């Protein structure tokens, strides 16, 4: 199993020489795709964290039928194939979609724009952050939150000064997973945003496009993306372990739900 996980990556790394890699990186399609991926994933991560944190906090503070229903909705984009998500986004926000009576008079046209790329990334990536954040908030000791309130903190102050710092390893792990998912987004983007150079052709779509013309460029793009993914392992594994050591909790505890 381990070999199956590692061998393709090794093959990718050994597939080309340094000179060929540099040539691939100089290709006209490389930097625009990289820059677009960086911009869109940054925007989608900001939206995921800003919108997902309050949702996760709400889910962690309550239990019952409503929370279970919300949890199922949050899980939905994970189990539904990306292509289906892309089609669903078109049906919702497309020219003749569910929201077209609202969007069209405002002159808003989402499909095949950079905004559509961001929207697709938010939908497919948010569940990973929300689940991890909710699990982290659930692990915080309720007594600590009560104590913070009795010491004069408002609910917002309690969240910022106690709940968020204590859940930080889980929030970081969730954000890293979520970012990795957004960075790799392909199917939903292709259907909802298309494959337009400069505005919707992110790295994964550029790899797919380059493969038809120049395999070497595709390999260069793929290695850059793989490198970015490897960098994301840092906040995913090392940072939570480090924080956990500092606070005296075992690292293992943080990994659940991460």
């Amino acid at each position, binding site marked *: 199993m381990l070999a199956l996980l590692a061998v393709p990556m090794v093959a990718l790394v050994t597939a080309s020489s340094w000179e060929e890699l540099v040539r691939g990186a100089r290709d006209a399609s490389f930097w625009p795709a990289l820059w677009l991926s960086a911009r869109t994933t940054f925007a989608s991560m900001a939206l995921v964290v800003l919108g997902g944190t309050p949702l996760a906090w709400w889910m962690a503070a309550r239990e019952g039928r409503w929370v279970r229903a919300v949890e199922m909705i949050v899980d939905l984009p994970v189990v539904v194939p990306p292509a289906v998500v892309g089609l669903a986004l078109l049906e919702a926000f497309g020219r003749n979609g569910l929201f077209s009576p609202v969007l069209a008079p405002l002159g808003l046209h989402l499909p095949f724009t950079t905004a559509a790329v961001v929207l697709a990334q938010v939908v497919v990536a948010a569940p990973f952050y929300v689940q991890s954040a909710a699990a982290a908030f659930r692990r915080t*000791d309720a*007594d*600590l939150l*009560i*104590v*913070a*309130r*009795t*010491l*004069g*903190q*408002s*609910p917002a*102050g309690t969240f910022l*000064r*106690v709940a968020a*710092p*204590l859940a930080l390893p889980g929030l970081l792990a969730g954000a890293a997973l979520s970012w990795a998912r957004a960075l790799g987004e392909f199917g939903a983007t292709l259907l909802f945003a298309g494959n337009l150079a400069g505005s919707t052709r992110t790295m994964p779509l550029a790899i797919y496009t380059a493969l038809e013309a120049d395999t070497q460029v595709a390999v260069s793009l793929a290695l850059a993306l793989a490198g970015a993914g490897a960098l994301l392992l840092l906040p995913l594994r090392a940072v939570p372990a480090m924080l956990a050591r*500092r*606070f*005296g*909790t075992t690292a293992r505890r943080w990994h659940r739900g991460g």
Partner: protein
Amino acid sequence: MQWTAKVRVQAGTFVLDASIEGGLAPVILVGPNGSGKTTLLRAIAGAHAAVQGRVEAGGRVLSDSETGVHLPPEERRIGYVPQGYGLFPHLTVAANVAFGLSGKARRMPGAERRQAVGAILERMGCERLAGRLPRALSGGEQQRVALARALVTEPGMLLLDEPLAALDPAARRDMRRFLARHLADRARPAIVATHDARDVYALDAAAVYALEDGCVSQSGPPSALAARPATSFVAEFFALAPGEQARPDDAGPASVRAGEPARSGP
């Protein structure tokens, strides 16, 4: 200063319905695990939103479900030390103690705050711990820091949930004396939940409330409960304190007491 708490909380199938009151001398809550001691303390602290009844301390109404009053915890001026002490693991001892002086309710300028923190840590005998994280402290040290953190905000009332349960016997004896001294010379009401009858005498409690299944099964001065236990739990509770009441040195200095029932003892 008098206080009363008449509280009804429903949490799932568990119902807590209890009415307790007291003055300046400590009131002790006893009861088996799951009898509602922690729920009652949290309700008084204001942590339960859906609570029926009325809580009043020193003439101030903290909550009253009839008139719709429900002060949030940050406005109640109640110090709460939970089981396990509730120290913030990501903050140093000094930052833990300073926490209550930086919130909305009781903000202090930096220099004044540092002075207040230093003073209370010194009084609690833990000034040398100021820079440490809670995980580097022993149980007794954690309890002292938690107490310092609660007291530095000058709360009108103190709630301690099993303050001695997690300590080894030697630390427990020290801490019991320490608590007795501090509760006595601060002259502020305190409710202490405990599993140990020795605490009742050492803290010079005015009254004991026995909670069983969410209801008060018996209450009164310690001597009355010890002499005529109404339930098998109360009988067992007091039977487990062999002769402790005969040792006045454990009770600490005479406390300020205002019109509470006669002092416990033989």
